[in-house]
C-alpha cells in the first residue's frame, strides 16, 4: 500500500442537494412569486475524500451530518449534484451505461437495517445468486457458488432455501454480506452495518469484516456513529458535521490528539466502560437542522472557542500536520 499509488476511491468537491420536487402548479406559483421556492437541503457540502486500496476509512458523525448520503454517492447509488466521484480514476457518471453498470459491481454496500435490506419474497439462495448469475460471474454450478458465498459469510448453506424472515438480525446481516461478496467487489461501503445488532452479535460481524479484509484484500468505507467500533476497525478516520468534513487523520491522531472542537466534544461525551458515575456535562445546543445550517463554520453556535470570524467565514479543511487535516480557524492562530 504505497503512498504513490492513486486512491481507489476519490470524492472531489462532492455536494448533494435535496430539494422537494414540486409539481407543475407549484413551479408556476413559484415563478409568479406567489409562493417561496422550496429550500434545498445541502446534505453533503463540498467534500473531498480519498480512500486508498486496502485501508479502512471510518466515517463518523451524528444524524443529519450526511454520512449516509456520502456513502451512497461513494457506492454509486446516488449521483452528486456537484463534484465528481472517481473510482480508480474513472468517473462513473462519464462512462457509457454498460461499462458503468459493470463498474458499479466493484463497489458494494452493506445496509443498516437487516430487516429492510433483504427482499422478503425471495429465498436466500436467490437473493445471493441472482446478481452473479445475471452478470455471468459464475463458471460452474450456481448452487455451489452460492454455498461458497454463504459459508464465507458464516452461514450454513443448508438453510439457503429459507426466507429472510426465518433468520435473526445477525444472520440477515450475514446474508446481506454474502450477497455483496457474490459479485466480487473490491470496495465495501458499510452504512451503520452493525448499529441495529445486539452487542454480542456486533462483535461477530465486526470480526467477519476484519477476516474478509484479510482474506480478500477488501477496502472499506465504514460509516458509523459508534466511536468505539470505528476506533477498533479503522486505519484512518474522517469526522463529519452537517455535510462537511471537519477533521480527517490516522486513527491514532484523531482519537489521541483531536484537533477540531467538535471531535474533542464528541470524544469527551462518549460513554465509556471505565468512567463510573460521572457527571455528564454536555455541549449546549441542539443539532442544527440541515435546512438552516449556521453561517460560516457550521459548528460555531455550539463551540466553546467560537470567535467572530467563525460566524462570518467557513473554515477550510487544511493539513495541520502530516496526514492530519482539520477545518478550524483556531489552527490559523499559531
Amino acid at each position, binding site marked *: 500500500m504505497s503512498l504513490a499509488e492513486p486512491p481507489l476511491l476519490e470524492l472531489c468537491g462532492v455536494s448533494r442537494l435535496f430539494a422537494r420536487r414540486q409539481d407543475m402548479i407549484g413551479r408556476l406559483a413559484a415563478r409568479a412569486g406567489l409562493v417561496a421556492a422550496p429550500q434545498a437541503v445541502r446534505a453533503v457540502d463540498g467534500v473531498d475524500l480519498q480512500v486508498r486500496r486496502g485501508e479502512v476509512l471510518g466515517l463518523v458523525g*451524528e*444524524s443529519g451530518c450526511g454520512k449516509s448520503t456520502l456513502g451512497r454517492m461513494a457506492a454509486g447509488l446516488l449521483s452528486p449534484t456537484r463534484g465528481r466521484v472517481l473510482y480508480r480514476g474513472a468517473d462513473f457518471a462519464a462512462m457509457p451505461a454498460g461499462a458503468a453498470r459493470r463498474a458499479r459491481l466493484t463497489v458494494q454496500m452493506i445496509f443498516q437495517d437487516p430487516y429492510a435490506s433483504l427482499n422478503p419474497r425471495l429465498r436466500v439462495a436467490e437473493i445471493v445468486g441472482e446478481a452473479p448469475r445475471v452478470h455471468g460471474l459464475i463458471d460452474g454450478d450456481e448452487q455451489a457458488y452460492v454455498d461458497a458465498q454463504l459459508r464465507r459469510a458464516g452461514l450454513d448453506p443448508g438453510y439457503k432455501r429459507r426466507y429472510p424472515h426465518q433468520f*435473526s*438480525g*445477525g*444472520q440477515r446481516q450475514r446474508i446481506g454480506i454474502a450477497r455483496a461478496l457474490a459479485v466480487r467487489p473490491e470496495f465495501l461501503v458499510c452504512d451503520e452495518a452493525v448499529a441495529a445488532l*445486539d*452487542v*454480542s*452479535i*456486533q*462483535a*461477530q460481524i*465486526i*470480526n467477519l469484516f*476484519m*477476516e474478509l479484509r484479510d482474506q480478500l484484500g477488501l477496502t472499506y468505507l465504514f460509516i458509523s*456513529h459508534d*466511536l*468505539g*467500533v470505528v*476506533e*477498533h*476497525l479503522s486505519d484512518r478516520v474522517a469526522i463529519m458535521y452537517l455535510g462537511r468534513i471537519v477533521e480527517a487523520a490516522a*486513527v491514532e491522531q484523531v482519537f489521541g490528539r483531536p484537533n477540531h472542537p467538535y471531535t474533542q*466534544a*464528541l470524544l469527551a*461525551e*462518549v*460513554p*465509556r*466502560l*471505565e*468512567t*463510573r*458515575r*460521572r*457527571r*455528564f*456535562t*454536555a*455541549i449546549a445546543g*441542539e*443539532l442544527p*437542522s440541515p435546512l438552516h445550517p449556521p453561517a460560516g463554520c457550521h459548528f460555531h453556535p455550539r463551540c466553546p472557542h467560537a470567535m467572530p470570524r467563525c460566524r462570518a467565514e467557513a473554515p477550510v479543511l487544511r493539513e495541520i500536520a502530516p496526514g492530519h487535516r482539520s477545518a478550524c480557524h483556531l489552527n490559523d492562530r499559531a
Partner: protein
Amino acid sequence: MMQALPAAATAPILEVRDLRTHFFMRAGVVPAVDGVSFGVAPGEVLGLVGESGSGKTVTGFSVMRLVEPPGRIVGGKILFRGRDLAQLSERAMRDLRGNRIAMVFQDPMTTLNPVLRIDTQLIEAVRAHGRTSRRAARARAVEAMAMVGIPQPEERLSAYPHQFSGGMRQRIAIAIALLHRPELIIADEPTTALDVTIQAQILAEVQRLAREHGTALLWITHDLSVVAGLADRVAVMYAGRIVESGAVDRVLDHPRHPYTSGLIESVPSRNRRGARLRQIPGMTPNLLALPRGCAFRTRCPHAADACAAEPRLTETAPGQMVRCFYPERVTAA
C-alpha cells in the same frame, strides 16, 4: 422460590420478588421474565442490562402493569412501598401510573400523540391526577419544559411533536414523566436512538433531576457504557433471568458470570486495536427452545456437566450475586 436479596442501604421503594411474565403464543409458552428479583432504593439508579430476548423490557412493562395479552404476569410480587402492584386493580394502578411511577420509552412518539399539541398533552397529563385548573396546569407544563432544558418553553408549548427534534421529544417525554414528581421512573432505552451529544445531554438532565428530587431510577438498556456512567448498581439479564447483579464497580471490574464478562470483553475499547474482538459464540437465545439447566450453557466457554442443572443466585462477594456454578472460572477482564 425467593432468593436472598442484597441488603440495600435504605428500604427499597421498589422490590420485585420472583417475577414471572409469560407469553402464551401459538408456538408455545415464552418465559420472557422467569423469576426476576431486585430492589431499587430511593435516589438510587439501577441499570438493567441485556440484549434482545433477555426480558429487560418486559420486566419494565410488568412493573408498570402494561403487559398485554398474549402476555401475562403469572407469578411473583411487585412491591411498591409495600403494596403488591401485581394484585392491584386496574383503577388503582392508573392512579399510580404517571403519578407515583412513571415510564419513559425508547421512542418518544410512543409517549407523544402526533396529532395533539404539546400543551394539550402536558396539561392533560397534569390534570389526570388531582384537580387543577387549566391555568395552573399550563403553568406546571411550562415549568416542566424549562426543567428539562427546552429553550423558550412558553412559545414552544403550542407546537406539535413533529416540530421538535428527536432529542427534544425525548426531553418532553421525560418532562411528562416528571410532572407529578414520581418516586420511581422506569426508563426503557430512552437514549438508544439518540446521537451521542444529545444522549449526553439527556443523561445529564436525568442525573440532575434524580439527585434533586430523590427519584429512584430503573434504567433499562443494552449499553454497558451508559450504565457505567449513570448507575449505582447493575443487574444483567439473560433469557428471562438475572445472571449477575451488584454494585457497578464490582460487576464491571470483576464480573463473575461468563455472559457478563463476555459482554464486557466484546466491547471494542477492551480489545487491542485491530485484533479480533473476543466474541460470545452462538446466537441470542430462542426462548421457545432454551437448553435445559443453565440457559447460557450452549455459548459458555466454561460449560461443564454440572450446568445441565439450573444454577441459583449465590452471593460471591458482599452485594454481588451470580447465577453460575463456576464463577471462579471467570478471570477479571
